[in-house]
């Protein structure tokens, strides 16, 4: 047995140095060249940081595009999904409440037009995106709140839409934070 113990101890020390010290330091060093310098990419308005590009934020006011419901209220220090099963009656009640609330704030939208993403919680609780449709369905409400032209808002969503990767892979999406920042700039 002894002939296995010492090599084990020494090999462990060697690989702690390689995998837990040198490797992360190398990646941290290289990442300094990446957008955000490896600290996470931030978004600034007038020189002030208003958020992280990839982290969704809570928007509740009528004048903003809302993101998806979040099980943790967009707490970026404690991500979580709802983990509710599809047939859970309490969960379905909660979805119903979200539908009612959405209809109240968006009286011109018919129930059958609401996309599932706006009444279901995201996996991370921090989903930064919406589908283009999920943004456009909110345009009437925002146009009324801001007294802006609807067509202008529709074209803003189009302009902010990220196409699928290389136009071929995955869904199209709109980053809600960036969309709202551009929205604030509209006159």
């Amino acid at each position, binding site marked *: 047995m002894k002939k296995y113990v010492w090599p084990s101890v020494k*090999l462990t020390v060697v690989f702690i140095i390689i995998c837990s010290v040198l490797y992360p330091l190398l990646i941290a060093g290289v990442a300094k060249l990446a957008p955000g310098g490896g600290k996470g990419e931030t978004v600034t308005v007038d020189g002030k940081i208003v958020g992280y590009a990839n982290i969704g934020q809570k928007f509740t006011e009528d004048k903003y595009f809302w993101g998806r419901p979040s099980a943790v209220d967009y707490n970026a220090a404690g991500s979580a999904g709802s983990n509710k099963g599809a047939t859970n009656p309490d*969960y379905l009640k909660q*979805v119903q409440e979200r539908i009612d609330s959405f209809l109240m704030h968006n009286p011109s939208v018919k129930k059958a037009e609401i996309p599932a993403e706006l009444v279901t919680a995201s*996996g991370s*609780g921090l989903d930064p995106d919406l589908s283009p*449709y999920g943004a456009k369905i909110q345009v009437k409400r925002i146009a009324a709140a801001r007294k802006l032209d609807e067509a202008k808002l529709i074209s803003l969503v189009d302009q902010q839409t990220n196409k699928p990767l290389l136009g071929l892979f995955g869904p199209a999406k709109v980053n809600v934070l960036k969309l*709202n920042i551009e929205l604030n700039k509209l006159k």
Partner: protein
Amino acid sequence: MNTELTGVVVTFLLTILLAYPLGKYIAKVFAGEKTITDFMNPFERFIYRISGINTSRGMNWKEFLTAMLAINSLWFIYAFFLLLTQGSLPLNPDGNTSMTPDLSFNTAISFLVNCNLQHYSGESGLTYLTQLFVITFLQFVSAATGIACAVALFNGLKHKTTDDLGNFWAIFVKSITRLLLPICIVIAILLAFNGSPASFDGKDTITSLQGDTVNVSRGPSAGMIAIKHLGTNGGGWFGVNSAHPLENPNYLTGMLELIAQVLIPMAMLFALGFYIKRKKLAYTIFGIMTVGMLFLVVPTIIWEMNGSSEIAKLGILQATGAMEGKEVRFGPAASGYWSIITTIISTGSVNSMHDSSMPLSGMMQMLGMLINAFYGGCGVGILNYYIYIIIAVFIGGLMVGRTPEFMGHKVEAREVKIAAMVTLLSAFLIKGGTALAAYYFVNHGDADWAVKPAAWLNNPANHGFSEMFYEFTSSNANNGSGFEGLGDNNIFWNVTTGFAMILGRFLPIIGPIAIAGMLAKKKYIPETAGTLKIDSLTFGILTFAIIIIITALSYFPPLVLGPIAEYLGM
């Protein structure tokens, strides 16, 4: 074609395209042939010298397993004490606390055995020190342990009669220096440039556009996210794993992480073919595994894209599929695909919450783990499949009335007993554990634990049963994903799943290597016209049928009580 589907198809094809040459390379590395990474030679010799390792001598199966178990025991002790004291150790910018003894026990085992079940949330449950010195470290070495054990099997199959399964230390070291580390560096840099944090800065506080104060967790995550996939570990830096927008920022990283987790398990199959010079055998196994995977993936993607009929009943549009627990940037197709890949491969990382999948998709995820050999984990996937092969050889032999032979060696009672025990062990751990949990839930609901049994379940009825069944399935399969609604950070779950994980890891490694070692020592019998041809389609189909029968016989009742009953009630 829908861009969500093209994304999935291309991801899978790219994986095969990369796995084939990588398999060739792996075979060369372990056969000691010339490769492009030979510049590592002096570095490896340096590691052997300072560690006092003699690599010139091979090991028989008992020596090989002793070396493997010795170093693994050491890692367990090391990890346990670091987790237990992390709160008072350095590199803790967020001021997170130490783990309780039962959680340290569970977490140390979980990462030691490549399972990565997490009964804590990364943002608050670990410090940067333990993320790197325990989690990342164990993610490398547990994957290398799995690869080394698979190579021992290869060595047993390669020679007609041999005692020598290779030198554990040398194979282990090379698995990291030639395979895991170089590929991880590439993946980690790609992740960092796509937005995964890599610096040592702690939590940031910002004011959002609407004026709320928000804390944002960060940390040196990119390197860990790379090895967690490449090594089929799966434990997330953040609580929600690769659903987190910093852990998996866009569709490209989604594809990258999906490819990374299948890469080595698939490459090991091709490596087997090159290494023992029986390419047809490798292609047959690859074909069977791929068919098995498609049986699970295709329906899951369809169900997730069709959306939830319960929410449709509320009158809501299901054009974008079932979105509860999913992220817009991946969509239901890539989420469904990931949920099966991560369960057949034993990664257990998630990009959507499995607890919120459609009931039958949840069953497919469970089946992936119950079978645990469609590609399977880093190295261990092949070992699991080898057990199925031994049982198929035995049954095939019975059917034609000959003493079963496998690659020129007689398979006798001792080998078949070991194979049967390994198979039955899973059924015992999973169903016994679930039964025990259900017993406490029903009869001792107010037991004074950190989470009372009555409050374990986040969902009622059959889905609640599924949460418990999934937890033991995942522990035994060393998968690590969960129906995360389960309130699992208490002494019951920490201890029981801890034992399920450690038994579910080491016995299915010890079993196949012992069988391989015993078979390799036997006299070689040349093939005759009456020999069962193990690389034939017939034998492939026989193995597939054996897998289906064993799984169905063992697990049909709990699957009926959980996902199937839930589906029928919809």
